[in-house]
C-alpha cells in the first residue's frame, strides 16, 4: 500500500507484507516512492497500540527499502515515519491487506497427444504453509516467440492449453505469478516465475486427427450399409431369396394338376376311380423300364388342350380322330397299358375304314405309344386287332398281361386285343 503525507506531500511510502516469510515470522517491506534528500535521515517504524502503551519497532534499512519481521497478524498497526527535521507521521496499516505472495516455481509443460492439449503445472511455497494455502489465484502468461503475452487465471496449480488454439511446430514461452484471492487476504501480484519454453507438435498430429475423423465417417457409412442389407434380406426373404436357396420339392399332386390343364368347361380332374368309369382298368402285373419320354410335358397345343374336353361328351368322339391326326399326343406307358377295344372304338369313332386307311403312325393309335415306340408298328390295326364286337370281348387269343407287357418293348405288338395302360407311376417318371 501507499502511504503519503497529505499535509506536507513530501513523500509517499509503498509497503507490502509477506506471510510466514521465515518459519512463523512474517515480514513487512517498505520503500519511499520518491527518494528523500540524501542529507536527511528518515526512519520507518511499525507501531502497535496495546492497552495504554504504544509500542514501535524500527524497520531495518536495507539499501533503499525498510524491512521488519513480526509475528502478530491480528493487531492493528501503524507505519510511522520519523525524520530529524519533521515530526513523526503515522498511517494505519493492516498487514493482511498488503500481502505479496512468494514466487511460483517448478513450471512444467506436458503434451497430451490424444487430446492435443498442453498441461501446464507449477508449484508455490504456500502449499505447505498455513495462511495462504488454497487462498491464492495464479496467472499464467504465454506467448509465441517474442509475440504478445496472453494470460490465463486459475485457482489451481495446473491449467491446460488447447492445441487447436496454438500454432503447430512453434516455440512458446510460459511464466506464472500469484496473488491473494481477496476473500480475507488482499494484496498484489508476486514476482513472475522463471520462464519455461516448449515447442508445439507438428501438423501430422492434425492429420492424424483428420484421418481419425475419416475413419469414423467410414465406420458410420458401413454400419448404415449393413442396416440396409439386413432390411432388404428381411423384405425379400420369402419371395425371392428362400425359393432360390431352398427350392421347394415338387409335389406329385400339384405337378399333375399342372399337367392336366383344367378345361374351360369345368372339366373336373379327379383321381377318384369312379370318374374313370368309361375306362377299362386292368390289373398291372409287372413294371418295366421305358425309354425316353417324348416331350410329354411340352406345352400343350390347342389340339391337346381341347382333347380332354372332347372326351367328355360322347358326341364329340367323332372329331377326335381328326384332332389327333394333327396332334402329337404321346402317352408314355410304363405298364404297357392298353386301351380296350371298346374304348378305342368309342374314342376313335365308327369309321373303321377311314382309320384303317390312314397311316397308323398318324392315327389315333398314337395313344398306344410307349416311350416313343409305337405299338402300331407291326400293323396294329383297329380293324384287325380289335374285334368289332360291341360286347367288348377280348381277342380270342388270351390276353396275358405279362405276355403283352413283354412284347411291348420290342414293338412287336401284333395282337388286336392289346390295350393301353396309363398309370400314375408313368407321370412320376416323366417328372
Amino acid at each position, binding site marked *: 500500500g501507499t502511504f503519503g503525507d497529505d499535509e506536507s506531500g513530501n513523500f509517499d511510502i509503498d509497503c507490502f507484507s509477506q506471510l510466514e516469510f521465515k518459519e*512463523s515470522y512474517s515480514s513487512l517491506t517498505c520503500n519511499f516512492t520518491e527518494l528523500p534528500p540524501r542529507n536527511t535521515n528518515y526512519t520507518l517504524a511499525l507501531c502497535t497500540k496495546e492497552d495504554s502503551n504504544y509500542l514501535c519497532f524500527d524497520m531495518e534499512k536495507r539499501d533503499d527499502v525498510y524491512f521488519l519481521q513480526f509475528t*502478530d497478524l491480528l493487531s492493528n498497526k501503524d507505519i510511522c515515519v520519523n525524520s530529524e527535521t519533521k515530526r513523526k507521521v503515522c498511517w494505519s496499516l493492516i498487514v493482511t491487506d498488503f500481502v505479496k505472495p512468494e514466487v511460483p516455481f517448478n513450471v512444467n509443460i506436458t503434451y497430451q497427444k490424444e487430446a492435443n492439449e498442453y498441461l501446464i503445472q507449477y508449484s508455490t511455497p504456500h502449499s505447505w504453509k*498455513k495462511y495462504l494455502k488454497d487462498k491464492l489465484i495464479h496467472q499464467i502468461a504465454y506467448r509465441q516467440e517474442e509475440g504478445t503475452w496472453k494470460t490465463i487465471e486459475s485457482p489451481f496449480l495446473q491449467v491446460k492449453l488447447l492445441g487447436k488454439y496454438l500454432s503447430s511446430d512453434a516455440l512458446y514461452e510460459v511464466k506464472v505469478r500469484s496473488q491473494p484471492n481477496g476473500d480475507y487476504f488482499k494484496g498484489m501480484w508476486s514476482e513472475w516465475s522463471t520462464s519455461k519454453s516448449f515447442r508445439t507438435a507438428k501438423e501430422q498430429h492434425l492429420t492424424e486427427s483428420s484421418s481419425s475423423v475419416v475413419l469414423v465417417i467410414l465406420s458410420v457409412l458401413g454400419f448404415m450399409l449393413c442396416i440396409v442389407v439386413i432390411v432388404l434380406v428381411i423384405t425379400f426373404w420369402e419371395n425371392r431369396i428362400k425359393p432360390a436357396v431352398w427350392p421347394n420339392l415338387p409335389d406329385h399332386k400339384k405337378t399333375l394338376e399342372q399337367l392336366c390343364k383344367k378345361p374351360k368347361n369345368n372339366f373336373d380332374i379327379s383321381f377318384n376311380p369312379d370318374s374313370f368309369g368309361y375306362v377299362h382298368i386292368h390289373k398291372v402285373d409287372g413294371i418295366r423300364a421305358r425309354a425316353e419320354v417324348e416331350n410329354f410335358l411340352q406345352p400343350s397345343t390347342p389340339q391337346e388342350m381341347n382333347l380332354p374336353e372332347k372326351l367328355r361328351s360322347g358326341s364329340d368322339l367323332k372329331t377326335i380322330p381328326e384332332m389327333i391326326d394333327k396332334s402329337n399326343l404321346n402317352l408314355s406307358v410304363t405298364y404297357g397299358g392298353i386301351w380296350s377295344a371298346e374304348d378305342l372304338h368309342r374314342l376313335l369313332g365308327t369309321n373303321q375304314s377311314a382309320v384303317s386307311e390312314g397311316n397308323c403312325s398318324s392315327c389315333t393309335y398314337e395313344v398306344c405309344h410307349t416311350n416313343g415306340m409305337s405299338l402300331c408298328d407291326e400293323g396294329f390295326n383297329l380293324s384287325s386287332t380289335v374285334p368289332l364286337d360291341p360286347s367288348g370281348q377280348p381277342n380270342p387269343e388270351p390276353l396275358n398281361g405279362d405276355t403283352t407287357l413283354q412284347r411291348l418293348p420290342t414293338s412287336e405288338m401284333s395282337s388286336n386285343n392289346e390295350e393301353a395302360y396309363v398309370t400314375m407311376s408313368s407321370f412320376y417318371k416323366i417328372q
Partner: protein
Amino acid sequence: NPAFFRSIFWILPLLLVLSPVNSTTCTMENKTTEIRMKYENILSHDIEELVNMSAEYRDRCCKNKNNEKVFFCNDTQEIQSLQRMACNMLKFFQKQRLSRDFRRKAALVSCGTLQVLQCKCESHKKEK
C-alpha cells in the same frame, strides 16, 4: 448463537488451566463476523499448531490428577470464558520446563485470542 464461541474455541487443554479472573469488558462482543473471519483465517492455524505441540505434554498433565480443573462454560459468557482461558495460558510462558517454541506458540495463541476479542488481562502481563 450463544454457542458460537464454544464452537470455535474448542481447545481441551485450555479448560484444564482455567482459574478465576476478574471479568473484563471486551469490546468485540457484537462483532461476531469479524471475529469469525480472523479466527478462521489466522487464529485457527496457530491453535492447531499449539495442539499438535502440546501432545507431548498431555500425558504429563494427566498423570497428576490434582492439577485437573474442570471449567463449565456458561451460556452468554463465552467471550469472558475465552478471555480467562487466554490470560491463564499466558502463564505457560513463564514455565521454564516447557520448550521455548511451545511457550512462544502458547503466548502467540493467547495474545491472538485476546486481540480478536479485543480483551485484556488485568491480573497478568502479556509478553511478546
